[in-house]
């Protein structure tokens, strides 16, 4: 647990974070308890966050306090906390925050003790593919699609920040320990999370991420996006259009 100032990684810090994640991922493929796992990596992780050759204070006068001692089981909880720290910067100059590789990789690293568990009991450790933690706007998968949106913490913050927590709760009230199928598909669609009405529709029709319901709704909304200017429509107008889909009609009437 740490209380410190928000930092960004240096180039060397980014390299070492990538290496740490790769080592951790190999380790979580074995049946190792969370306690053993974290015990093995804690000193490397701590050094990554505190060594000034690897992490340097960020923000106005380098003075934004941050703590990872709270309990953050959901994306909403961590996004709400980060918005309390970064909200004013987001409102004033979001380009400082959005797409900032050094910042989001550092913040993801800072919360790695939480992210590397599979649930709040912290019995088992699990590190997924690197891009869920290491934030990069240049990181494309083999099919040429970006992985940027898959950074768990950055995406949670972005959804929360766009609407100050008033929309997208079905995405945010999901475990912090993985991105989740619903989040992955909604985030991958073009600008959906920037549209409050679209997120309200998702909240209404898919209050929980289960049975790939968000994946289906995202695909349908994406088709509608080519027919209607969804971003200019209210949630009610979008729901009215979706009534023709049998799966949603009873949820809308």
């Amino acid at each position, binding site marked *: 647990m740490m209380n410190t100032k928000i930092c960004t990684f240096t180039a060397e810090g980014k390299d070492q974070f990538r290496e740490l994640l790769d080592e951790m991922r190999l380790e979580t493929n074995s049946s190792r308890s969370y306690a053993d796992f974290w015990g093995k990596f804690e000193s490397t992780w701590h050094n990554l966050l505190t060594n000034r050759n690897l992490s340097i204070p960020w923000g106005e006068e380098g003075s934004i306090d941050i703590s990872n001692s709270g309990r953050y089981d959901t994306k909403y909880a961590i996004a709400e906390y980060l918005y309390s720290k970064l909200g004013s910067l987001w409102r004033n100059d*979001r*380009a*400082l925050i*959005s*797409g*900032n*590789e050094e910042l989001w990789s550092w913040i993801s690293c800072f919360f790695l003790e939480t992210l590397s568990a599979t649930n709040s009991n912290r019995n088992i450790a699990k590190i997924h*593919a*690197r891009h869920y933690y290491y934030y990069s*706007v*240049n990181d*494309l*998968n*083999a*099919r*040429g699609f*970006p992985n*940027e*949106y898959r950074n768990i913490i950055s*995406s949670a913050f*972005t959804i929360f920040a766009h609407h100050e927590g008033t929309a997208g709760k079905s995405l945010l009230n999901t475990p912090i320990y993985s991105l989740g199928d619903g989040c992955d598909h909604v*985030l*991958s*669609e*073009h*600008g*959906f*999370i*920037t549209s409050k009405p679209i997120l309200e529709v998702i909240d209404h029709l898919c209050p929980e991420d289960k049975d790939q319901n968000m994946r*289906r709704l995202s695909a*349908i909304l994406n*088709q*509608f996006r*080519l*027919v*209607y*200017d*969804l*971003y*200019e*429509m209210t949630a009610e*107008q979008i729901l009215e259009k979706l009534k*023709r*889909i*049998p*799966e949603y009609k009873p949820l809308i009437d």
Partner: protein
Amino acid sequence: MSINSHNYTNRKRIEREHLNISQPSEARTLNAYPKLATYDFPDDAEIIIEVWATKAKNSLLRFNWGTVASPGYSSDDGAPLESIKHTNRFKCNIKVINPNDKKILGLAEEVEFTAGSIVESSMVTDILDVELVDNLEGRIWDLAFIDDEQKPILHIERKRGYLAKDDFFFVATSPIILKLVLLKMTEHCHRPPEADGESEEEFPHWTYQWYQLIYSKQGFYNGTIEFPERNKALETDPDWISKRDNWIDDVVKSWGISKMPPYLKRLESKEGS
């Protein structure tokens, strides 16, 4: 569940040549001067331009671009893209919207443009980026390999940036550029990227793209030589270097046969006029 009924829209495709998107070399702005007279849209139809960073879909910005009768952005300086700082490569959608029911009447989708020094190139292939740079120490162009992945990028001297779309430049330089890229590809790609469902992390992304460009069904290579796998080849196969060189020569030859004719034809017609 059927969603087929939503596909028929009467939406018109707006051709890129009617958009007139400017590509400022310095300011991070977008300007477009759409000419939509030929599409027969209602005068009061609204024009919306959506912009996002190529690699970050959720950076979406939307700009009202007036109406079909009176298109344009509210500022002569263009629409600001300052809130997307981490790239200068963008895509945009241009939509013509019925103001009453918000139906899309016309659409140009995923049009690439740049604001800043990097321009997307259609010169060698769609997947080779071109960057205009200030000082090439007397050279007009240079091929650089950047980032951890050693991705190829074509540098062109900024004051000769027009060469990026110049037919003669293409004809004269693309074979050697391709040769250099293929050489680098064989260094970085020990096996064909599509082999046995390799994970995406196995290969640099750019090698996968180039491999597809060469070998996919839509690829240009019409030869039969397989990709020269380098896996331990240097230790076990003394002929690997000559196999590699044969492959490169054959791919470049196919490139010339399949890609050069339209450029040569345009050059010939210019000479004739």
